């Protein structure tokens, strides 16, 4: 057990940062916003943590907090800039946001270390802090799915006009969604640097968008459980497939393809679908059908005539 734990420590840690990164895309998506700002935030916070720790001697936890809040604010500002866009155009603009972060990282000179990145971000940041912070993130994400806020977020996604008529400021929710994507993505990026002690422009590139999107789509868009399942599967799958050497990418792609075709609602969708089906069957078995409220009575016309008088 101990040997296994230490042998796979990096994979376990990466699972947790991948989870927060996936949530950074899922939270705005639950509000109907297709945005990759969380991935850009991952890069921003990764570099800012590097600079704060390596150049200014800040501790790990303060560096995470400062970096995540800064990333959240930058995402909020970006959202204010591109808020008029919609759907695919909005997604493209946030895609541009992550590219800008990459370009700055490559051309940042000694501050970012240029194409070869920075090394030696060494802190006592350990598994305990990583698990605690990730759990807080997961609980916060889970709470937004419950009660009043959960219903209102669903309404913002399903029918913004309806949400507005029920007193929900769609704009305010969506802007918060961007800020949350920055906070979650930023926390993930900051912790990733502290785990690995290094950061390079390739660590924050295009593959992160693919990874985060794969996690939430295959895990299930609707719930944090989907993001958690997806994060576990897609961090461990490449590891398990290393033995398959040259077949690895093919199997990886095949798994995604099959999951997308067989379970379009993701793993989470399969489970909730099964639960609902069971509930329905149980109702049918117990004979509790829909109460027949309106009986077709013969004197219906008479009733209506009376009511009209």
């Amino acid at each position: 057990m101990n040997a296994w734990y230490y042998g796979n420590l990096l994979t376990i840690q990466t699972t947790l940062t991948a989870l927060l990164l996936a949530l950074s895309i899922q939270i705005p998506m639950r509000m109907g916003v297709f945005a990759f700002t969380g991935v850009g935030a991952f890069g921003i916070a990764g570099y800012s943590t590097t600079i704060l720790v390596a150049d200014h001697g800040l501790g790990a936890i303060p560096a995470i907090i400062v970096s995540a809040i800064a990333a959240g604010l930058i995402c909020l500002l970006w959202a204010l800039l591109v808020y008029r866009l919609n759907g695919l155009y909005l997604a493209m603009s946030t895609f541009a946001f992550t590219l800008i972060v990459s370009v700055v990282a490559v051309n940042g000179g000694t501050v970012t270390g240029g194409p070869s990145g920075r090394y030696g971000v060494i802190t006592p940041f350990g598994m305990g802090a990583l698990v605690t912070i990730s759990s807080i993130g997961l609980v916060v994400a889970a709470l937004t799915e419950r009660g009043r806020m959960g219903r209102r977020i669903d309404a913002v996604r399903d029918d913004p006009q309806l949400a507005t008529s029920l007193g929900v400021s769609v704009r305010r929710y969506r802007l918060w969604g961007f800020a949350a994507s920055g906070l979650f993505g930023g926390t993930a990026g900051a912790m990733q640097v502290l785990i690995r002690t290094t950061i390079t422009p390739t660590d924050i590139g295009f593959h992160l968008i693919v990874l985060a999107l794969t996690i939430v789509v295959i895990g299930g868009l609707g719930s944090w459980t989907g993001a958690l399942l997806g994060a576990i599967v897609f961090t461990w799958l490449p590891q398990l497939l290393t033995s398959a050497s040259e077949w690895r990418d093919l199997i990886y792609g095949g798994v995604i393809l099959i999951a997308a075709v067989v379970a379009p609602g993701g793993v989470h969708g399969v489970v909730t679908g099964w639960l609902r089906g069971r509930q329905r069957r149980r109702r049918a078995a117990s004979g509790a059908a829909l109460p027949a409220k309106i009986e077709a009575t013969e004197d219906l016309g008479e009733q209506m005539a009376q009511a009209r008088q």
Partner: protein
Amino acid sequence: MTATAPGDEAAPLLAVRDVAVHYGGIKAVDGITLDMHPGKIYGIIGPNGSGKSTLLAALTRLVQLTRGEITYAGRDLRRTRASSLAGLGIARTFQTVRLMPGRTVRQNVQLGADVRSEPLRRRLAGLRSAPRSASSSVADAISRTGLAGLDDFRPDELSYGTQRRIEIARAMATEPRLLLLDEPTAGMNGAERLEISQLMRRLSAEGLTQLLVEHDVQMMIDTCDHVFAMAAGTVIAEGAPRDVVRDERVREAYLGTRWHEHA
């Protein structure tokens, strides 16, 4: 204003003055003036494309006014955000069923009651004024719209007429002062229509002001105190329901010219 709407002596809850909504060259609503007094049920009839739904959208701030003004309880609605209206007591239903498919009947109705419940952060800050039971307004709305026993069903398990009742229940759960209903009984059978009509009369007796957009003339006559007939974006006649449907201009606009010669 020449017509005498019921209760003219009191201040109207909603006053619409010369409201117009133009989409480019199309004058969907073009100069409408009307008053709605507390506790009364108003009706709007008119053929498709006469501007009924656009007027409702204008009242709920979903479209911009080209000109005119709307005053609700002494407040200029042009300066009010659309998302603030529910809190001020204006609720509406839509022409089509717009429910959250993944949620149960109770959760859908709860979404309406959420307008009145305090957000978590204020409850945590201890700023909650009086303990309010949001669940009672939900249970009330569910039972009064005849949805009792269906709380845990999902909309797609229920008939179209029942889904429409969920919409009405959701609007009622916001505890409105003004309820705008856009063809609420479309797709319902006669008995269900009668129930909705009777529900509206009871709500009216309790002081709720309502605006009903409806195609069914009989439903209009049974339910409304005062009817506005619209055609081509303007009000062409108004008054007691029976008088309005007998009006020559309304017959021409609504039923087509010369319909009465065959009748």
